[in-house]
């Protein structure tokens, strides 16, 4: 057995998992905290990648990150505007923005469905050039991403502890309370979605620089993959303290990538991955209800059995 899982495979899973964790964290804010299903994630992820790729090609790898995040904020703002000001259903608002973004993404990429950033400076290549040690050669991307994620984590945690963050959490947790307590839900929803989509944009930019390419279909199904990570994290770590929840989401995302790597090693065809992630999400979200139904069924059967035994007992007594 020549190492079923090589260090390289583990490392790649970890690195991609960490980047995807940013999208999962984005959904953590919109789905878990704000209780809004933001379906513009797919398009916004590609948008971040496209904007980031174009600026990286132009030779501005740092600016690319900021621009990708700003693009995410704009996309989130439009989604929020549609639902808070114009009364569009939140799911529909996401779908509308997602559809519109396809054209915008193509436009950003100069109406080509694929751009390559090979040979250009990226955050990763710049970080790699800091040292020449062999260890560094293997692990620089991982170190970079871990640092990045830690920074994002603590920023999110700090943000959710500010009065603005608390208002955003209250908006998702108890709409009636928010209306009675001087918080403008339109404002908190808007800020929440902007922050959430900024993270999606950041993830898109990083994956672009990581793969050194951007494809128009990059984001397809991303929302389900991120939800899968989120659900894995929340079911493993519960809904306790905020920092635990945030780290749970990140670990969930890495675990998800490990499962995918394992599947790849077992030669499961890549075409099935979308179905698998859809199944994970569906099962994980449906599990509590399914457990309830099974329990009720079990109760029904045992009660029927008991009654039958009782009736038979009564009959015997008569005889």
């Amino acid at each position, binding site marked *: 057995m020549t190492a079923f899982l090589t260090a390289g495979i583990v490392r790649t899973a970890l690195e991609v998992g960490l980047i995807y964790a940013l999208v999962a964290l984005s959904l953590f804010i919109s789905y878990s905290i704000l209780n809004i299903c933001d379906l513009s994630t797919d398009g916004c992820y590609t948008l971040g990648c496209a904007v980031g790729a174009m600026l990286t090609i132009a030779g501005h790898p740092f600016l690319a990150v900021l621009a990708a995040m700003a693009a995410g904020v704009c996309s989130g703002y439009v989604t929020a505007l549609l639902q808070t000001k114009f009364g569009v259903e939140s799911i529909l608002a996401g779908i509308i923005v997602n559809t519109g973004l396809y054209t915008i993404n193509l436009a950003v990429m100069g109406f080509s469905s694929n751009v390559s950033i090979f040979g250009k400076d990226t955050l990763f290549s710049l970080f790699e050039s800091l040292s020449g040690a062999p260890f560094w050669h293997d692990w620089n991307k991982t170190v970079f991403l871990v640092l990045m994620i830690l920074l994002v984590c603590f920023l999110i945690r700090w943000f959710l*502890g*500010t*009065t*603005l963050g*608390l*208002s955003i*959490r*209250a908006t998702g*947790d*108890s709409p*009636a*309370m*928010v*209306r*009675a*307590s*001087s*918080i*403008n*839900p339109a404002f908190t929803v808007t800020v929440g979605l902007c922050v959430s989509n900024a993270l999606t944009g950041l993830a898109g930019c990083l994956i672009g620089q990581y793969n050194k390419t951007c494809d128009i279909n990059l984001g397809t199904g991303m929302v389900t993959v991120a939800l899968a990570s989120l659900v894995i994290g929340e079911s493993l770590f519960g*809904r306790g303290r905020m920092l635990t929840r945030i780290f749970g989401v990140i670990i969930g995302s890495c675990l998800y990538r490990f499962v995918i790597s394992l599947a790849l090693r077992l030669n499961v065809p890549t075409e099935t991955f979308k179905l698998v992630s859809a199944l994970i999400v569906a099962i994980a979200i449906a599990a509590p209800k399914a457990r309830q139904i099974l329990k009720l069924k079990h109760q029904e059967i045992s009660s029927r059995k008991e009654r039958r035994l009782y009736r038979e007992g009564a009959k015997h007594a008569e005889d």
Partner: protein
Amino acid sequence: MLKIEHISKTFYPGTVNEKKALDHLSLTMEDGDFATIIGSNGAGKSTLFNAIAGSFFTDTGYIELDGEDITFIPEHVRSRYIGRLFQDPLMGTAPHMTIEENLAVAYLRASDTRHHLFGRVSRKDREMFREQLALLDMGLEDRMNHPVGLLSGGQRQALTLLMATMVTPKLLLLDEHTAALDPATAAKVLELTKDIVKERHITCLMVTHNMNQALELGNRTLMMNTGTIVLDVKGTEREGMTVQDLLDRFAVGSGKEFNNDRILLSTKEDI
């Protein structure tokens, strides 16, 4: 001072479901007035509260609070100076946030939030929350980091009361806020309400279905029917009043018998 002049509200106008919920209702509350409101189902009590709180804008008339015209001020702005409690204890608090975080959200009203978006709960705030919680005498001051979802209905309602009055509101709206609690807890929450309202001299409107309560609490009793106030008693007239007098006066005022079983049944209970 709350001044309401001829407000009307019709829901679903021009359809078969058209419902005139408020009909040229006028009401003036002096500072420190504590009025109880009774009325049959659909009389417009909750609609009146929603109109004052700004859940919708009225079709006609205007509402003034402390001399400021608030008729078209949005709900979240009004809630800076109007405290509100609902019948459902689950509505006033966020279950997945801790007691401290809930209080912090309520305390936002104290400051101009625009300038403190990134402020945090300071040690001084925390101390103040503790002191206030201790006044409830429910041991909540030692559970500040527990999620509110773990508290009982009575505790949650007491906490909501605290949140609504922590920054003294110009007006407090209580919509049957003890109706969903068990008798002992209801009495306790009511006692707290009385103390806080009296101590802070808060102008207060309270919907109740308990006739004894309606006469004993506060200094004024209002009766509503078909979207308007049909009876308004206070002072010496109110002092000598019995529940039967109140029912008789209602019949005169509205031209029909009082028809709310819940209220009629509750007349025999003590507060």
